[in-house]
């Protein structure tokens, strides 16, 4: 078999192995790729940065464990930033599986990195509410109709952070981390565009292209996939050098991203090169055969 044909018919399992190696080797070697925030990510950072201490922020974890490797780094970076800025954060989710994602933050990150922050005073978990876009609509029309207690059933009036919250517009910004439907798009449609609350957040790389058209008029900023999370982390580290030694998951995971993308580009180029070389080779052989047939040469003689 000729080289171009053997490249085109390569066993797909060899490609799987190459991709696996491209992911695992950078994970072991931990190379650091310096990132700098693009305007669309910087816009979120600047908005959070400008909020006065004590401002109420609504952070919706609209994703489950299946997309956690992409969205958990965004969640951690946003929580670190909002807590450092002394903002009051209400966690919420439109995904049933989002409850577990919120608990990872409230049970693991906050008590370790922000032991002085108290539940009910600095942050609260409002839990999961069913109803997709309809749930957002209900909250905008009458917040307490849908949310009258936190995830544990404690009435909002009994928690200092939510005692004064009667309407959705009591929150100065809405942040959503989105894995699909419902997510940022619904927050824009049913809260941002109606109530005028600034909406921003992050999405998996799969949903990000759908969300870009809303920027900048309807969406303040967007973190698209792991790259967006990495940019936010770099903005955080630049502004707060104390985080330089913290584990920045997205920055670490950009190593495998870069190596794998280079590998995929090389494979695409190699595949195309083999295809065109193979086609040219077949064309030459067919040309020689045709010429030989017309001049009476070749064949069995």
């Amino acid at each position, binding site marked *: 078999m000729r080289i171009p044909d053997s490249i085109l018919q390569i066993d797909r399992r060899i490609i799987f192995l190459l991709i696996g190696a491209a*992911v695992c080797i950078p*994970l072991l070697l931990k190379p650091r790729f310096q990132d700098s925030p693009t305007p669309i990510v910087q816009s979120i950072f600047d908005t959070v940065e400008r909020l006065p201490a004590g401002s109420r922020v609504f952070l919706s974890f609209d994703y489950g464990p299946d997309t956690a490797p992409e969205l958990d780094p965004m969640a951690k970076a946003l929580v670190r930033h909002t807590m450092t800025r002394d903002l009051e954060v209400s966690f919420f989710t439109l995904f*049933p599986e989002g409850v577990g994602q919120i608990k990872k933050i409230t049970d693991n990150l906050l008590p370790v990195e922000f032991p002085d922050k108290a539940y009910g005073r600095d942050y609260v978990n409002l839990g999961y509410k069913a109803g997709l876009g309809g749930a957002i609509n209900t909250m905008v029309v009458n917040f307490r109709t849908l949310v009258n207690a936190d995830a544990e059933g404690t009435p909002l009036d009994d928690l200092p952070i939510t005692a004064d919250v009667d309407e959705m517009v009591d929150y100065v910004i809405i942040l959503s981390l989105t894995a699909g439907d419902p997510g940022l798009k619904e927050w824009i449609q049913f809260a941002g565009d109606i109530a005028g609350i600034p909406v921003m957040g992050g999405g998996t790389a799969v949903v990000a292209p759908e969300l870009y058209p809303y920027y900048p008029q309807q969406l303040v900023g967007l973190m698209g996939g792991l790259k967006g999370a990495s940019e936010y982390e770099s903005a955080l580290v630049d502004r707060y050098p104390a985080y330089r030694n913290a584990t920045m998951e997205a920055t670490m995971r950009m190593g495998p991203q870069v190596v*794998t993308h280079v590998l995929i580009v090389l494979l695409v180029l190699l595949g195309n090169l083999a295809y065109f070389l193979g086609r040219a080779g077949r064309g030459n052989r067919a040309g020689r055969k045709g010429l030989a047939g017309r001049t009476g040469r070749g064949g069995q003689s």
Partner: protein
Amino acid sequence: MDVTLMLWIDAALTLMILSFLYRDNPFYKFAEHLFVGVSAAYLMAVGFWDHLVPNLLGKLFPALMSGVVPGAVGRSPDYYYIIPAVFGLLLLTRLVDRWAWLSRWALAFIVGGAAGFNLPRFLDSDFIIQVQSTMIPLVVLDASGNLIWGASFSHIVLVLGVICGLVYFFFSVEHKGVLGHVSRAGIWVLMVTFGAAFGYTVMARISLLTGRMEALGAWLGSIF
């Protein structure tokens, strides 16, 4: 649950699923069926406790549900909720062939309600404001009247891209001459869009693979 046990279950299921990359096998099938079963059971439990109990049973029988529905204590029953309860039951008539036609009433209500509820929002957010966002100046000047090259170029690309893309989907006139060239440019715009979306999808999949590899690394780290 013990963290070590969780790591082992996590790693075992990950390896079972990844084994499909070599070829289909019983370990993969087991993990696949387990995933489907657990997901279905989880969503059923969530559907009951987070949908039915607070939104229906808590409204109809607040005294009975006061222990599990926050805010139900001391509330009087809301009998309007009998209507959605009946519609919900009508959906279940699909299980009996003779009465299946009754479920169409509930479905008609769902379709009509959802369409009426979503139409104004989509029309406003995804059409009118989107059109408004495309009406931007092609030449962007700063406060002192100097041309901002980057922003101007970006605006021109945006406006031309939208026009070319729209022309490609305009089928009332044959795509010949100038219209043909613009339509051809529209195809290029679409191809660039699909390429960018594909690139993003690759990034998403690699992120998930990285997450799994990190989990396997944590498992191996717990052994050695």
